[in-house]
Every structure is written in C-alpha cells, then in structure tokens.
C-alpha cells in the first residue's frame, strides 16, 4: 500500500479546495463529500525496484512455515506451428518516463529501449559479452584503451550508424546540462571524472563545459572505428558498454522536437516504435533496417496497467500474454492446476539488505563488529523467504547473485541463534554496555506491506534469538531515502539491483570508496576492487572479487537477506523465450527470438 500517504495528502489538498468555496444557500440535505478511499493493492512501481516485488504477502510472517511454490525456472522450449498473428501482448507498470536512451532510468523504459536500441556490445544467453553494433574490439596491453570496429548497420530511417554517433551519445551522457541519472557508469572513461565531480556550488559556463567535454576520451578516427580511452584499467568496462545509455544517437534526430514520439523515433535495435499513446499504450514493430536476423514477432504491444492486480486480471481474461504474479496471489495460483503449468520462477540480479549506521564512530554498531554479527546471525532468512516472500527469492549470504561470475553460494554468516547470543555478549562489552536491555536500536524502512512484514519478522527474530527489543519506523518512500542519506536509522532497509551483469556492479559500485549510506569504508576492500579492475583475465579477476566479498561478509556493514526472484505467468503460446537475470519481463533481452504458437 505504498499509495497510502499520498492519498492522505491528496485528501487534505482536496478538502482545502472544497472547503474554501463560499456557498450561498446552505444545502438542505446533508450530502457527504467522499474522501478517496485507499487504493486496493500495492502499486506496481516498475521503477528500478525499490522492493523486490511491491506486493503484499497474505500470510503472517510468524505463522506456520509455508512450502515455497514449485515452478520451473526454464521456459518451455517446444516450438509448435506459428499462429497467423505474431503479436506479443505485455503490460507496463506505468508510463515510461522517457524513451530518450540517455535519460531513461526505470526498468519499464529500459525494457522498451532494449528493443529500440543496440549498444556496441550485447549479451548471449549466459550474459557473456558478445558483439553488438561492434563487430569486434581490441583492448590494448595495459587495459586503458578499447578500439571497437563497427559493423555495417543502419538506423530505422536508413542512415548508416557511424562511430561519430557513439562519440556524441557518450559525451551527451556525461554532459552535466543533460543531468543524466546514469552518467556515473562512464566514470572510468578518461576525462569523465572532471565532469562528474564538477564543483556543485558554482555551475560552470557552457564554454567551460564544452572544453571539458572535448577532453573526454572518446573518438572516431574513421566512420567504422570508435576508440575509448580509460582513465584507469577497468576490466569490467565491456559490460558497461552493453548498457542502453551507451547506444548510438544521431545528434540531428535526438535534438529535434518530439524526437521520442512514434513516427519520429530513430531506432538502432531489432524493433522500431510504431505507436505511443501516452499513459495508455505503446507498440513496436520489426525494424526493417535491423542488421541481424529479422524478429519473428510482427508486433509487441505494451499496455500501461499500473495496478498489479489489474494486470493479473488482464492476463486471466486473455488480454495480455505475461504477467508478474503479485505476492498476494502466489499461493492461490500455485494451487490452481491450470494456472500452475503457466508459471515460471525467475531470478532478478539484485539483493535486499539492511544496513547498519556506521557514520557516527560512537554508535554501537560502529563500535562493535560483533554486534553486527550477532544481529545478522540471529535472522532465519530461510523462513523469511518461505513465508514473507512465499518462496519468491533466494536466501543471500553475500552480494554477488547467482548467475554472475564471482557468486559464492556458501559465503555468508550462518543462522545460528546460539552463536549470535555469544556474539551479542562480546558486542555489548565492545560497545561498553553491560546488558542487552541498554541497546537502543531503531530499524527504518520505506513503507510497503512487504517491508512492514519483513521488519516485523526481523524484530521477532531479534527479540526471540537475542532478547533485544528493536523499535521500527516506517516512512513514505522519498522521505525515507532522504532520511537514509542524511540521517540514517541504526538499521536501514535497502536494495540493490543490477545495472550491468558484473561482480563490480554488486561490490565496488555499492560499497566502494565510502560512498555507501552506512558509512562503510575499507581500504582493503577498495584496493581489491582496483586490483580486480586491472586484471583482464577472469581466472585472476574473479578470486579478487571473491576475496573482497568475503571481507565484506566479515566486516558485516549490512545484513544480506535475499537475492530477488519472482513468479511470472506466461501463456503457453509464447515460444522461444530466453530468460536472463536482467529481465523486467522474462525474455526481454531477446524478444527478437520470440514467436507466437497456434492457440
């Protein structure tokens, strides 16, 4: 029910509006002004997820253990005869904020941009980097220069895709005047940090910005060659070059009025934008100029359905072909013999965690690592996942999720109430306390049914296994992020979802260089990160990331709870889905391979 607060504010505003109007004759009847009632279900945000699935499990967290729902993790592979109409119908959790690749940030926009754009490098089914618009590339010896050879490919308007378009789009991403949310991914490019770390008090003149942009290490010696100079070696950089924000842009097009509207959109991906009725629907068709195998689908229709329950009903009424199962409905659908066969269990690269406040050196958690261990080891994550998440997640002990090289299933502090109590005693001494009752701890979270239940579960675990009473405080979403960034609670709810599928994005980008809200800093961790960045050979690189991860687990600045997962209903006639852990809707990275079977 993340709408709750907003409804209250809105009702107040409307009361102001209605109450202020002078009325001539007082009405004789006693009519009631109805204030809006709360929205029925948790709003599906579609945002780069703030909670794994914004739904509300029905079971009480402390109730009897629920058997997790059993569903296949691989989509059915059999391909039957094709249907006459090759249309894939999907729902979008809200209006995409923009289809400008430089500015887009939400998963729902990214899902569409993955169809409309193609970067230099792409993925295969296992998320290994493979050629995209670059046919080939070469990294120099010390890992500071990458030369991409572009393939012969055209935009949907028939113009050739040239190296200069990459130079333009990469600089545009870094241009502070665009204020792009994903500009940070460019930080390893030579000259980028000067732009990213501009003095925020005095905004420089246009000329000064242009001069800095000229210094950025991207160039096009000829139309087919794009060269990137890196400020320091970054072995993960090819993964960055797969992001939608790095796709080529024709300057003349993106700077024109209404560039992102249907009819004007210039696509470099397998599909092109056919229609976009704002706030209602959007449709894609094959890009006739696409260099690769032509897509089998003639059309992908996206309908904006904000309410996840409404999306489920649309699926049940056969209006859409795929839908994420709201957590309230997992048990019911899992028990339905007909629907059960259409269920797919999916994993999303990202993790849910709770971070300790280490900013104040006098705080109990900053003083005592043992206390952090105690609070971590006292939590039975398995039961949490089975009850609160109804099995739609994987218990996590560390950061790098399954499927990403560097993942370690067996690393993490165990659930051990006995050990936790011992650690608690050590911790109390370290913190200069004598009794657990002296601990004053508050856990903060952004309000949603899921987080409320999770926090209630955690409180119960700490009460039962440690004998510590922890207070809780829920805040509305943006208020909470503001609070967490500036004045964190003792323990704070947080999540991380992948930008690019590489261990660095789960370790260095989250916990590196003292940038985390917990205030965690570790020179050893940072040095392992930079060592790994210089190591191009995976054989040598991965152990370094794993070493850093083990260090993180030992330092325990956060409690890792689970890696995200979920259930999706998919109509049996959807064929050829290739599921990856970067998906918003299963198969979205490879919709060009999907077809619709007869039904």
């Amino acid at each position, binding site marked *: 029910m993340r709408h709750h607060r907003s409804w209250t504010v809105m009702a107040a505003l409307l009361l*102001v509006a209605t109450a202020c109007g002078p009325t001539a004759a007082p009405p004789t009847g006693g009519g009631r002004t109805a204030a809006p009632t709360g929205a029925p279900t948790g709003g599906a945000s579609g945002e780069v997820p703030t909670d794994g699935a914004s739904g509300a499990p029905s079971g009480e967290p402390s109730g009897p253990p629920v058997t997790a729902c059993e569903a296949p993790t691989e989509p059915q592979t059999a391909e039957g005869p094709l249907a006459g109409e090759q249309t894939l119908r999907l729902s979008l959790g809200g209006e995409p904020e923009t289809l400008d690749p430089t500015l887009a940030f939400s998963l729902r926009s990214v899902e569409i941009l993955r169809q409309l754009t193609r970067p230099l490098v792409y993925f295969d089914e296992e998320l290994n980097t493979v050629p995209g618009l670059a046919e080939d590339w070469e990294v120099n010896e010390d890992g500071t220069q990458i030369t991409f050879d572009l393939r012969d490919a055209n935009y949907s308007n028939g113009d050739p895709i040239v190296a200069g378009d990459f130079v333009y789009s990469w600089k545009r991403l870094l241009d502070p005047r665009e204020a792009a949310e994903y500009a940070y991914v460019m930080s390893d490019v030579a000259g980028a940090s000067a732009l990213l770390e501009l003095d925020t008090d005095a905004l420089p003149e246009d000329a000064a910005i242009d001069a800095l942009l000229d210094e950025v290490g991207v160039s096009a010696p000829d139309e087919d060659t794009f060269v990137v100079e890196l400020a320091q070696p970054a072995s993960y950089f090819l993964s960055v070059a797969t992001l939608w924000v790095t796709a080529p842009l024709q300057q003349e097009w993106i700077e024109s009025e209404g560039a992102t509207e249907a009819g004007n959109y210039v696509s470099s991906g397998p599909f092109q934008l056919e229609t976009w009725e*704002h706030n209602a629907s959007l449709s894609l068709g094959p890009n006739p100029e696409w260099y690769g195998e032509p897509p089998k689908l003639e059309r992908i229709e996206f309908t*904006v359905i904000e309410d996840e329950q*409404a999306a489920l009903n649309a699926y049940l009424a056969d209006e859409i072909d795929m839908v994420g199962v709201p957590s309230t409905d997992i048990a019911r659908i899992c028990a339905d013999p007909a629907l059960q066969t259409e269920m797919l269990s999916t994993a999303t690269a990202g993790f849910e965690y709770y971070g300790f406040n280490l900013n104040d050196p006098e705080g109990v958690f900053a003083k005592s690592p043992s206390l952090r261990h105690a609070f971590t080891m006292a939590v039975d994550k398995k039961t949490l996942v089975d009850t609160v998440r109804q099995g739609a997640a994987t218990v996590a002990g560390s950061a790098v999720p399954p499927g990403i090289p560097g993942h370690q299933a067996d690393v993490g502090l165990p659930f051990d109430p006995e050990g936790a109590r011992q650690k608690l005693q050590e911790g109390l001494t370290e913190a200069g306390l004598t009794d657990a009752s002296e601990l004053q701890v508050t856990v903060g979270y952004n309000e949603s049914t899921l987080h409320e239940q999770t926090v209630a579960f955690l409180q119960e675990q700490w009460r039962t296994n440690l004998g510590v009473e922890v207070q809780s405080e829920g805040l509305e979403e*943006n208020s909470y992020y503001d609070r967490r960034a500036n004045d964190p609670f003792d323990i704070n709810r947080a*999540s991380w979802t992948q930008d690019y599928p590489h261990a660095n994005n789960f370790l260095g980008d989250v916990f590196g260089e003292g940038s985390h809200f917990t205030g965690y800093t570790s020179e050893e961790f940072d040095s392992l990160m930079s060592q790994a960045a210089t190591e191009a050979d995976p054989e040598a690189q991965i152990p370094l990331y794993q070493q850093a991860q083990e260090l993180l687990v030992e330092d325990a600045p956060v409690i890792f709870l689970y890696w995200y997962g979920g259930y999706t209903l998919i109509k049996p006639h959807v064929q050829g889905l290739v599921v990856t852990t970067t998906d918003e809707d299963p198969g979205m990275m490879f919709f060009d391979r999907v077809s619709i079977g007869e039904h």
Partner: protein
Amino acid sequence: MTGYLIRRVLWIVPVLFAVSLITFLLMHSVPGGPWDREKPLPASVVQRLNAEYGLDDPLPVQYVRWAGALLTGDLGPSYRFRDRSVNDIVADGIGTTAQLGVMAFLLAVLLGIPLGMIAALRQNGLPDYAATLISIVGIATPSFVLSILLVVVFSVTLRLLPTHGWDGPSAWVLPTVALAGYPIAQIARYTRASMLEVTRKDYVRTAYSKGLRERAVVTVHMTRNALIPVVTILGPLLAYLVTGSFIVELIFSVPGIGRFYVDGIEERDYGLIMAMTMLYAVIIAVLNLVVDLLYAYIDPQIRYS
C-alpha cells in the same frame, strides 16, 4: 442576480490563491525531494537538476515564478517525464477524465432519480425494498471493491468486457458503472426521502382532490419540488466523481489525469502536483457555483442578491 454572479466568480480568485499557496507550502514541507531514489544520484547530478528546474531558489521566488507562468497558461515542466511538459500531460488525459466523469454523472442521475421515485411511489412495496437494497449496497461498497467485483464477473469470468483501457464503448462501461455506483445510491436515497416528504404536502393533496391523475400529480407537482434537496447533494457528488476517478482510473487503467495526481505526489513532481490541485480546485469551485445557480432556477424561493 448578475451582481451575485460576478461576486461569486471573483471570489474564486482568492480561493485559488489560497489553495495554491497552501498546496505549495504543504508540498515543500514534506521531507524528500524529486531526486531521492533507492539508488542515490551523484551530488553533481542533483545539483544540475535543481539548477535546471530552479529548485535551488528560495521558495517565495519559486512560487512567484510558478504563479507568473500559470498566468500565461504555462504549467511548467514535469520532473519525472523530463521531455514532456505538464501542459502535455494534462492535455493528454483531461478529455478522458472529463468523459468518464460526465458519463458517470449522467448515469447516476438517469438511474438514481427514477429509482428513488419508484421506491417512494411504491413505498413499502417490492420495488421500494429492491431500490432500498440497491442504495444501501451502493453506499456501503467502496468504488474499488465494486470495480474489482465488476472486473472479476464481467471480464475474467464472463469475458464480456475488457478488463482495462479506454478503447471504445465496451471499455467505457465498467469504469463508468464503478464510478457511478455510489452517486446512484445517494441520489436514489435522497430522491425517495424527498418524494415521500412531498407526498404529504397540502398542494399534493389538493392536486389529487382536484381529480388529477397520479401521473400528472407526480410530474407537474411533485417532481420539481422533490428534486430541490437532490440538487443540493449534486455538488458533493460531483466532487466525489472528480476525486473518485483516481481509484477507478487506476484499477481500469483509464488513461486519464487522475493517476498523475497520486504519482505526482509520490514522485514529488511539484509542477504536476500544483497543476492537478489547481485544476481540481477550479473544477470544484465552478461546479459549486453551477449547483448554487441551479437552486435558484429550481426553487423560486431562493433569490440571490
């Protein structure tokens, strides 16, 4: 009368000013801003965005700039939908929201009044009990419950109507009914009560004793008088239709503007919040005025001066 009208219209101006000022202050006093995210944005990006949208200026400056732009018809930029203006967003959805509201209003009046009249004329008969039952259920059922019920029955189970969208008449039916449910019940209840009261009036007895037929008594003598109290609740009901559309638009994915009010508040999209509040304030102020004028037309005893 003209003087009254002018005064009432002029009154709307300070009302709108007060609404805008209160909204502006409330909105900025809520902690958290438009750039707060689960993944925090770099400080330089936030600074740039604040500068671009003038959010680093003092609040009075921001307010004056907003009000100045409003006078020229410019509702400002949306922070979330960065390549669209609030004008675009409002223009896209207002027609749909208005259509939904008007259809629900007409449905409520056309069903509610006859329902109430039948119930009153057949007091304590079967039609009365049926109508009373409908009213009670209608009043007690929140629109989101009614909406979900309608979808489950007519879309998921019977597959007669689409679950969502706004493509043509078949998609209009369920949202309109869902939104009209409560007003139908209210209007029916008021009409019934008021008709029963009028039935016992002397002039009605006189009309009957003159030998007029029931139809003539009802249409000529009773209806107009009985509708006066009903008109008084139309104002609040119209306000309900405006505010209630938020929920109905959400559940049926109707591409109106109601949803942007909720989303705007969640995203701290200040321009969008201000625009929506002002829009609703104007609509409600104007509707109140219209309803007041309607009294004077229906009830000759009311004279504005």
